[in-house]
């Protein structure tokens, strides 16, 4: 190899690393190294402040599985919350998308309107709804005398579950609606028109033609709603802070409290590793199950 070619090769290599290294360094520093540290710290006892980090093997995981009812409760809450919100979010937003994909008057205004809650931070959404649940519902009940407004929507542990779920669904519908609308726009009109001529009713048309064709959008929307529900934090933080008691404490909030309120960083990282494994397993399973349906259709 001549010196000129070698120089060109070195220059190419430098150029490659010059353009790619900054991105990789940022990711390594702020995501991958912290993640690997989390896995390591999950085998230790560490209060976050001390330099002293003590290796304790699987003790954190054993405690998490055997003797932590709060964590168990957070797990059950998160799973129930996920099932309820994923199903209702996707059904409602798909319904809205189908309606707003039709040629109805003012559909652009309507699409924009339903999207608005999605651009507001969840922390603010939580506070706004706290106002509605307390002061707002007092006024509604004075005006309508309906019992539904007299219930303690944030104070009763069973009702608080539904309040938190309802507010999450309310906030996210716009986002999933937009994903579904984008999917519906790819459905060829001729195919639907042919079905109309064949005398297929609108409901049959939706389940036999439209739904199979928009399965890729369903996969994406369910994937996002699943992973967002499993790591839900902000809206609970501001709406109930996990209460009353620990009734609405999600896994993510439980991790936060363990690490930053109880100063048990080692144990917190063990919980966060479990959260990672949970989300990973659930979403991989969902993607493979849904992708298979996409191929069939």
């Amino acid at each position: 190899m001549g010196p000129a070619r070698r120089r060109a090769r070195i220059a190419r290599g430098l150029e490659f690393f010059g353009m790619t290294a900054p991105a990789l360094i940022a990711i390594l520093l702020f995501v991958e190294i912290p993640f690997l540290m989390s896995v390591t710290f999950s085998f230790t006892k560490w209060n976050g402040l001390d330099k002293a980090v003590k290796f304790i093997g699987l003790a954190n995981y054993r405690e998490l599985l055997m003797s932590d009812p709060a964590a168990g409760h957070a797990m059950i809450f998160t799973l129930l919350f996920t099932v309820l919100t994923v199903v209702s979010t996707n059904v409602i937003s798909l319904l809205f998308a189908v309606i707003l994909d039709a040629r109805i008057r003012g559909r652009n205004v309507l699409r924009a309107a339903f999207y608005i809650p999605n651009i507001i931070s969840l922390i603010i959404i939580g506070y706004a709804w706290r106002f509605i649940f307390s002061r707002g519902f007092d006024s509604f009940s004075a005006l309508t005398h309906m019992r539904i407004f007299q219930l303690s929507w944030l104070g009763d542990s069973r009702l608080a579950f539904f309040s938190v779920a309802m507010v999450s669904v309310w906030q996210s519908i716009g986002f999933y609606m937009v994903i579904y609308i984008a999917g519906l726009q790819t459905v060829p009109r001729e195919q639907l028109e042919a079905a109309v001529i064949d005398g297929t009713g609108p409901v049959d048309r939706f389940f036999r033609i439209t739904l199979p064709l928009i399965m890729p959008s369903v996969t994406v929307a369910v994937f996002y709603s699943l992973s967002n529900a499993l790591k839900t934090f902000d809206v609970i933080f501001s709406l109930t802070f996990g209460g009353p008691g620990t009734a609405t404490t999600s896994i993510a909030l439980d991790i936060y409290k363990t690490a930053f309120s109880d100063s048990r960083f080692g144990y917190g990282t063990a919980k966060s590793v479990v959260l990672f494994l949970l989300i990973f397993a659930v979403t991989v399973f969902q993607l493979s199950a849904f992708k298979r349906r996409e191929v069939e259709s």
Partner: protein
Amino acid sequence: MKRPRGSLVLSLVMFACAVIYLYPLILVVINSMKSFSEIMTNVVALPSRLSGANFVNAFTLMSYPNLFLNTLLVTFIGTTGVVLLASTAGYKLSRTRSRYSWIMFLLCVAPMMIPFQSFMIALVKVARTLHVTKTIWGLGIIYWGLGVPLSLFMYHGFVKTVPRELDDCAFIDGCRPLRAFFQVIFPLLQPVTVSVIVINAMWMWNDFLLPLLILSGAKKSMTLQLAAYNFFGQYKIEWQNAMAGVLLTITPAIIFYLVLQRHIIKGMVAGAVKG
């Protein structure tokens, strides 16, 4: 274009739905202009007079201009960094076909599968070690690492649709590689850049958990979302000021949305579908 019958009825029903749907937000707006006693007697009624007093209170109580600038700065530093890092790396990795390039690409996009909550505790430790806590700059820089994977993935996919001949001319002209990239290639990536800006800016502007972890204890450098938390976390909430505070906090995002609506929706869909 003939609309099917019944579409008018459906449209009216949907408008009614939209009003009910947004009613909680309408109530926030109404009550942000009321006095405390008016809120305590009736939330639904319109304010007896239009008054900006609550806004003035919230504005000064939150020290709004300072917060606004902080949040804007975080969003700007974070988004600009993500665009620069992700576009250069996404382009180079997409154009280079080698094993190293492939490994690097995997290392860069794998974090899309790692939820923030599963490494946040250790991230705080890393941030303390690097002395990037309690500063707006530090927070913005941390967002680079969190934002690049998805954005890089989007650039990487889009670059494949840009003909290679174009970079040949750009680089043969003897420009320095970075200059050639920004003068010739980067403008061609504009559709992704818009999506990347929208996704990252909306996220960073509204994010709460990372600022809470990184900025806690720093009084001078807070973001709007963080200040809202302190504002509402008080023992006795003054609802009238709180509602004005809510409105002040969400207005910038709402304006951003109304002005760039099309781009925002397109960007959000692109991010979701490609991600």
